[in-house]
């Protein structure tokens, strides 16, 4: 090869390299350009409030003053931990989560199992169980407050017909949270039901047929085929459900007529935060409460996600 052609080749490769760099640069610019609009909104209304909330939780911040006043360090957190109302609302939230989560998962799974059978009216049942989930919370609560009404409410009416004593659904400290749970199951179980149904429809019917030819009964098929194959779905539902349940607020607050329920028995941690932030305007203090809840939710979901990751590795 002559010197001239070698030189020409060298010139060409450097031109190519330049063109490649140019293209990479353009690709980076294009990619960032596409992501930017979403990212600006995301940074402004998700990342920034997380940081701002943390900052607020260290100050004696009030809404009227519009900003930081005295730096308290961990003062808000110390005060929070010594407030019995905080511990009580945390207890209500945990109790609600511990009771409602298994209920919402089991009822959702059971309904999906039944609807997934070859029965008439499948589409109808699916619509009925899911429709309540799309109703606004206020509609749900207006209807259920009326059902729970002492004396002339439908539920009390039925109890009277059966010669049973009437129940203080919204007025008894031992019952009020149960009423909140009943309303929550009625309102939201459709979501878990739907995820389970979608998961079950991905299981091939041959697998069940083969098992039943081998003499496996329905329970055995549910135990050894449906439940194991839906393991990941269950973990996913569990994660979403626990996160949702720990944020209990709106249905309890509205069902108790914008109150805390008898003996504060339905006041959740979010409601405690809301009341401190927006009725007594102790915003810094309320932010500290939000952060405690955030950390609890984070710990719980990290634990659950690692469970999911382990399941994926084993699958």
């Amino acid at each position, binding site marked *: 090869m002559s010197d001239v052609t070698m030189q020409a080749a060298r010139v060409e490769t450097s031109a190519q390299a330049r063109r490649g760099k140019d293209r990479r640069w353009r690709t980076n610019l*294009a*990619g960032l*350009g*596409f*992501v930017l609009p*979403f*990212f600006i*909104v995301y940074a*402004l*209304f*998700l990342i*920034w*409030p*997380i940081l*701002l*909330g943390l900052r*607020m939780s260290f100050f004696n911040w009030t*809404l009227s003053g*519009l*900003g930081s006043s005295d730096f308290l360090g961990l003062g808000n957190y110390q005060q929070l931990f010594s407030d019995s109302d905080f511990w009580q609302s945390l207890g209500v939230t945990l109790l609600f989560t511990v009771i409602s989560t298994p209920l919402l998962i089991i009822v959702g799974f059971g309904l999906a199992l*039944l609807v997934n059978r*070859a*029965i*008439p*009216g499948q589409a109808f049942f699916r619509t*009925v169980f899911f*429709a*309540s989930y*799309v*109703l*606004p*919370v*206020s*509609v749900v609560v*207006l*209807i*259920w407050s*009326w*059902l729970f009404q002492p*004396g002339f409410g*439908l539920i009390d*009416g039925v109890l009277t017909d059966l010669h049973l004593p009437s129940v203080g659904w919204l007025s008894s400290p031992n019952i009020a949270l149960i009423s909140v749970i009943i309303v929550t199951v*009625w309102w939201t179980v459709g979501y878990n039901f*739907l*995820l389970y149904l*979608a*998961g079950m429809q991905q299981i091939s019917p041959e697998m069940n047929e083969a098992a039943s030819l081998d003499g496996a009964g*329905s329970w055995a098929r549910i135990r050894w085929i449906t439940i194991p194959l839906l393991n990941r779905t269950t973990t*996913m539902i569990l994660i979403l459900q626990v*996160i949702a349940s*720990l*944020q209990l*607020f*709106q249905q309890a607050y509205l069902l108790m007529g914008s109150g805390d329920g008898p003996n504060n028995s339905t006041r959740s941690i979010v409601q405690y*935060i809301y009341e401190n932030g927006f009725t007594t305007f102790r*915003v810094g203090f309320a932010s500290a409460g939000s*952060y405690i*809840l955030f950390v609890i*939710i984070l710990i719980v*979901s990290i634990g659950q996600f690692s469970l999911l990751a382990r399941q994926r590795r084993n699958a």
Partner: protein
Amino acid sequence: MSTQTVARETTRTHEQARATDAQKKRRAKNGVAFAVLVVMALMWLIPILWAIDTAIKPESETTAIPVSWLASHFTLQAFATTLATTSLPTWYFNSLLTSAIISIVTVVFASMAAFAFSRVPFAGRNILFWIILAGIMVPGQILIIPLFAMMQSMNLVDTYWGIILPQLASPIAVFIFKQFFDGIPYELEEAALMDGASRFRIYWQIWMPLARPAIAAVAILAFVASWNNFLWPFIVITSNNLMTVPVGLATVQTSFGIRYAQIMATALLGGVPVLIVFLFFQRQIVQGIAAAGLKG
């Protein structure tokens, strides 16, 4: 006939017998399943039916004891009164306006971001995607206090923008779009790139038309979610004429006192728009929720 074929025939008839037996059993079990489902469906329907029943009773008969489904006559008076005396039509408008804007902006911003995450190999895209994905885990309720403080400093408390802005950042929408884009083969786009089409033209003229099912799912889910959002508009809105449907309805119980026919009529009128959207777009809603929930 050889013994072998006889044997084969007998197993076949055995199998047939077992099959019809199993079929019978399955039919019986389906019958039980159906009966249980009917009972469960009634538990889900009775609250709604009772609300309808109450709403069409004359007001004076709603609190009759013993409790009865019957009334001397049925009337639509409560619906008429509700529409005339509450701000429900205004609340409808506010919900429709804010939810439509949130839905449209979410579709445009999230699909653009997802397009880049799926198709444009730019530097740092993995980190950015994980940052956005992590947002799915951030519980919305804990942001209300700092968000309110932000809205206050931006003078957006008690405005439409105050309702809309914090609801635009939906990481789950990016996730649904990315799932969808990842499933489409590359060839289409390579041909277009060869022709020298710009990235934006590829996004707009090739991907968006292809992504119609994902667009429908995200648009409807975002619309329903913001229509039903209670906590945020409840906090950021104080004027009656800017309230959304769920917030407005929450004020009804106290203002109506014990006029149950009217309260139920209001609840039903408040629930009907989302139920209509749901019945029309059930398929997209179901698919969208399954896509968002299962593939995570």
